[in-house]
C-alpha cells in the first residue's frame, strides 16, 4: 500500500506540476480569445471594423505627412526647427512598443488600449491646433483643411477602436487614460518664431504618432483577422 501510495504521489506530482506550469504559462502567453462569445457575427464584423480602422489610420497618417511637409515648406525654411524638434512629444511617455519584437510580444488587448490612449491624447491638441491655426497669419487653406480633416477622422477612428475593443474585450470597462497635452500656451505665444516652432513641433509629433497607430493597427489586423498571414 505504501508503495502504491508513494508511487501515486510520485506520479501525481509531475502531473500537478505540469498543471500548475500550464496554468502559469497559459496565463502569461496566451491572451483572451478575440471573440469570446464565439458568434459568427463577431468575427465578420470585427474584420470589417479592422479594415475600416486601417483605412482611417492610413488616411490620417497621409494627411499629417502632407500637412507637415507643407508647413515645413511654408514657414520653417531656414529656421532650424528640425534639430529642435527632437524634443519630446506629449505622448512619448506612453509605453508604446518601439520595434517589431516588442510589438509582437505585446498582447492585442494592451495594444488596442494603447492605441485608444494615444487617440484620446490627441483629441485636445487637434482641437486647439485647428483653432490656433485659423489665427495663424496667411495660413494656407491646404494646411487648415487638412487639420480640420484630421481632427474629424481622429474622432471617427476613436469611435471605431472603441467598438473593436468592445467586441474583443466585452464587458471590460477601463479607465480612459490619456496623456495630457500642455502645449497650448506655446501655440499662443506672441513671438512669431516661438509660435511657429510650437506648431512645427506639434505637427511633427502628430506625424509620428499617426504612423505608430497605423503600424499597430496593421499589425493587429494581420494577427487577429488573418492569422499572421496577410
Amino acid at each position, binding site marked *: 500500500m505504501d508503495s502504491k501510495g508513494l508511487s501515486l504521489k510520485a506520479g501525481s506530482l509531475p502531473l500537478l506540476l505540469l498543471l500548475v506550469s500550464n496554468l502559469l504559462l497559459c496565463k502569461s502567453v496566451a491572451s483572451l480569445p478575440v471573440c469570446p462569445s464565439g458568434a459568427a457575427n463577431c468575427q465578420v464584423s470585427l474584420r470589417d471594423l479592422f479594415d475600416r480602422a486601417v483605412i482611417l489610420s*492610413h488616411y490620417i497618417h497621409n494627411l499629417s505627412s502632407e500637412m507637415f511637409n507643407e508647413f515645413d515648406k511654408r514657414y520653417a525654411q531656414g529656421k532650424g526647427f528640425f534639430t*529642435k524638434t527632437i524634443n519630446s512629444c506629449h505622448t512619448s511617455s506612453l509605453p508604446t512598443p518601439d*520595434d517589431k519584437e516588442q510589438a509582437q510580444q505585446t498582447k492585442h488587448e494592451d495594444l488596442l488600449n494603447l492605441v485608444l490612449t494615444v487617440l484620446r491624447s490627441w483629441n485636445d491638441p487637434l482641437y486647439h491646433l485647428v483653432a490656433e491655426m485659423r489665427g495663424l497669419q496667411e495660413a494656407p487653406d491646404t494646411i487648415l483643411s487638412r487639420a480640420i480633416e484630421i481632427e474629424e477622422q481622429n474622432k471617427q477612428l476613436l469611435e471605431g477602436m472603441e467598438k473593436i475593443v468592445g467586441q474583443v474585450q466585452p464587458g471590460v470597462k477601463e479607465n480612459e487614460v490619456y496623456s495630457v497635452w500642455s502645449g497650448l500656451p506655446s501655440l499662443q505665444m506672441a513671438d512669431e518664431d516661438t509660435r511657429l516652432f510650437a506648431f512645427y513641433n506639434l505637427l511633427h509629433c502628430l506625424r509620428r504618432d499617426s504612423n505608430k497607430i497605423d503600424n499597430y493597427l496593421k499589425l493587429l489586423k494581420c494577427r487577429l483577422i488573418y492569422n499572421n498571414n496577410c
Partner: protein
Amino acid sequence: MSWGPTGMDLWKLLLTLAVAGSSDALSGSDDTPAILGRASQSLQRVNPDLETNSSGKPKFTKCRSPELETFSCHWTDGVHHSLKSPGFVQLFYNRRSTQEWTQEWKECPDYVSAGENSCYFNSSYTSIWIPYCIKLTSNGGTVDQKCFSVEEIVQPDPPIGLNWTLLNISLTGIHADIQVRWEPPPNADVQKGWIVLEYELQYKEINETQWRMMDPVLSTSVPVYSLRLDKEYEVRVRSRQRNSEKYGEFSEVLYVTLPQMSPLACEEDFQFPWVLIIVFGIFGLTVILFLFIFSKQQRIKMLILPPVPVPKIKGIDPDLFKEGKLEEVNTILAIHDNYKPEFYNDDSWVEFIELDIDDLDEKTEGSDTDRLLSSDHQKSLNILGAKDDDSGRTSCYEPDILETDFNASDVGDGTSEVAQPQRLKGEADLLCLDMKNQNNPSSNDATPATQEPGIILAEENKSRPLLIGGIESTHQAAHTQLSNPSSLANIDFYAQVSDITPAGSVVLSPGQKNKAGISQCDIHPEVVSFCQANFITDNAYFCEADAKKCIAAAPHVEIESRVEPRLNQEDIYITTESLTTTAGRSGTAEEGPSSELPVPDYTSIHIVQSPQGLVLNATALPLSDKEFLSSCGYVSTDQLNKIMP
C-alpha cells in the same frame, strides 16, 4: 597655406557655434547634440561647398532601413586634396530613449555588415519612432552629423522571384496579355503586417530606351496588356513602403519572350492593296476603252454612251410646213395613230389656247371675248398668235413629249419649249373641258364664265388673241387649276366658238352653260366610258391620259390652224359657214349665245385651202356630228375624208 579652405571652414564653424550659443542662451534648454546638430545644419546651409565634398571630408551619403527593423548608414571617404591620410573615421550615434538625450555617444556597433564606409544597426539597436542622431568623426573631429527617425528612412529591398504567364492572345495574333508575378523582398515582414509595401512595375521593349511605368499596386502580381508578339520585353519591379515617397532598388530584369506565331499569320500591318487596285483599275479601264473605240456596233456604243433623247416627233419634217404640203403632214399625223401614248399634242390649235386669266393688263384691251365679238376685228384676226401665258396650265397633261418640230414651226417666234408643254396643258385642259362639257352638258350649275377663248400666245405676241375653241369652265376647282381664282371675276375663260365670221371675228356659243366639274381632267370613269362609247378609236388624239379613250379631233385642224398663223400671220379666222381665209377680213361677231343648240365646240374643217385657209363646214358636221363631237372635238383625217366630198 595648406589649410586653405579648411581654415576658413573652421572659422565659420566657430562663428556659427558662437551664434548658436547665444541663441541657445535665449531658449535655454538645448543639449549639446542639439547645438552640434544645428551647427552642422547651418554650416551645411551656409556653405554649400561642404555638400559637394570637394574638401575631402567624409560625409554621410545615405541612411536606409529596408524593413523597419534594422538600418544602416553609409558615408563617403572624400577626395583627398591634402596629403594627409583621411584619418580614422568613426561613427557615433545617440538616441533619445526618454525625454532626455543620453549624454554619451555610442560608437557604431557594426562597421562591416553593410560594406565599406558603413555602419549597420541590427534590430536590437534599432528603435522605431525614436529620434537618432549620428555623427561622423575623423581623427576625433566631427565632420558630419545627421538626425532622423527610422520610420523616415525606409527603402525596401527589391522584390524577388519575377515570373510571367501568358493570359491570352488577341484574335489578330498580334498582341498578347501577360501576368507578371513576384515575391516581396524576403526581409520585409509583410505577413505579419509590420510593413506594408506597394510595387511599381516597369517594362519596355528590348531595344527601347524609355521604360514604361505602371501605376503602383499593392498586390504582388499585375497584368501587362497589349504586348506585341514579335517583340521581346524587359520587366522590372521596385517597391516602397506605402506611406513613404522613396522607392527601393529595382529588381532584376525579367525577360519576356512571347511565343511566336506561325509565319503564315497575317502581317502586322494591313496594307491596303494599292498596287492591285491600281493595276486592275487600269486594266479594266483599258478594256472598256478598247471596247468603246473598236466596237463598230452601235449597241455597245449606246450602252456606254447612251444618246441623249431629243424630244422630237418622228416623221414630221419641218420643211413640209414651209412648203405648205399639208396633205403629207396630215398623212404623217395619221400615222401617228400608232404612237398614241406619246402623242399628247392632239390638238395643235388647242396648244395655243390658254386662259389668260392672270394677266390683268391685257384686260385693258378688253377680254378676248370682246375682242372676238367686237368690230375691232383687226385685233382679233390673229388667230394663232398665242400669248404664252402660264395660266390655266394645270396638270392635265404631262408635258413630256413635245412636238418640237410642230411647235417650232407653229409658233414661229421661238417660244421656248417650256411654253409648249404649257400650251399642251392648255390644250389638254381645253380638250378635257370640252370633253366634259360635251359629256355632261347638264351637270353643272356653275355659272358660265364669260365665254372667252383662252388664248395662248407666244410671249412676244400678246397682240394676237387667238381663238380656236372655247370651253366654258366653272368657277370650281377646275378653274382654279386652269386659271387664277382671283381672276374668276373678270376672266376670259375658254368659250366655245360656234362660229367664225368671214370677217375674222368669232362667234361664241353660249352652249355649255352647265359645266361639269372640270378638274384636271381626272375624268371619271363614266366620262371615260362615255368617251369610249362615242369616240372613234382610230383617232390619234387624246384629251389626256385618262381621256385617251376619247378620240381627238382632227389633228390636222390644229396643224392647219397653227400652220395658218405661222404662215400667214394675218388675220385668219375660221368660220363655221364657210371656210375661206382672207387677209384682213374680219368676221362678224355673231351672237354667242345660241344656247340651246348643241353646238360643237370645235368646228370641223371643210376644206383646207393650203396654205391660206381652212374651210370649216359646220353644216357638214351634223352628218358626222356624233363622231366628231364625241371625239374631243377634233376631226381626224379619216373623219375629214368622210366628211368632205
